């Protein structure tokens, strides 16, 4: 059997969150006067605090 073509994935570096990714996006977009839509940059992004779940 021929070798399996390996999947290509979206992984984050250890200690990096999607919030960090959004912040980076925001930096790039802000340089063009654009915004990360749907991202509340200063309010955080959690619907409810984890401890209330």
């Amino acid at each position, binding site marked *: *059997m*021929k*070798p*399996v*073509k*390996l*999947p*290509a*994935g*979206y*992984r*984050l*570096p*250890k200690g*990096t*969150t*999607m919030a960090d*990714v*959004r912040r*980076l*996006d925001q*930096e*790039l*977009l802000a*340089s*063009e006067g*654009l*915004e*990360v*839509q*749907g*991202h*509340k940059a200063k309010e955080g*992004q*959690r*619907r*409810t605090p*984890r401890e209330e*779940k």
Partner: protein
Amino acid sequence: MGAKANDIVRQAWRELPRGDRDLLKEIRADQWEVCGRSLGTYTDELLRSADRGSLSAEEIARANEALALWVPELRVMLINDGHPAFDGLDGPTLAYDLSRVAWHEWGHALSLDRAGEEDIAAGERYVELVPEGLAKNVRQAGYRRREYTHEVVAEIYAILMIRRRQGKTERPPWLHPEVYELVRRVAG
């Protein structure tokens, strides 16, 4: 979250330029599944059940960390909407993150099929040319050198789609022309 997540991915698909969607259909990269499973384990199950081989334990472990995968052997994109990275997000943020990840994976599908050997060999150079934060994420996420070009294409493709939502379709001022040309050439 499955149905909602699937709706978000479907919307992200619809937002792709028609030419990109056609290209993805042409290379049979227009199928996806939002599965809420650890993706290495699930992909290995799918491969075995389709009699298409299996992944090594190391590859399963790597893929289990992924939020999403493009599986070229099965021509399907998988998204683990149960990944902790998506935990507890409000609606707009979840939509942003899932769309971004889906666009990244469609960028992968195009790159894996269309990037040439020279493009792949130049991966380290392309990483050096992207903005510092993006380069750092590619280098620190444990990708192999031969995956660098694909990661650059996928990340830039996703950000170009985010810009496109806001009516911007030209080369961003922060993106090196060589990288922009790579993405245009590979991703349509």
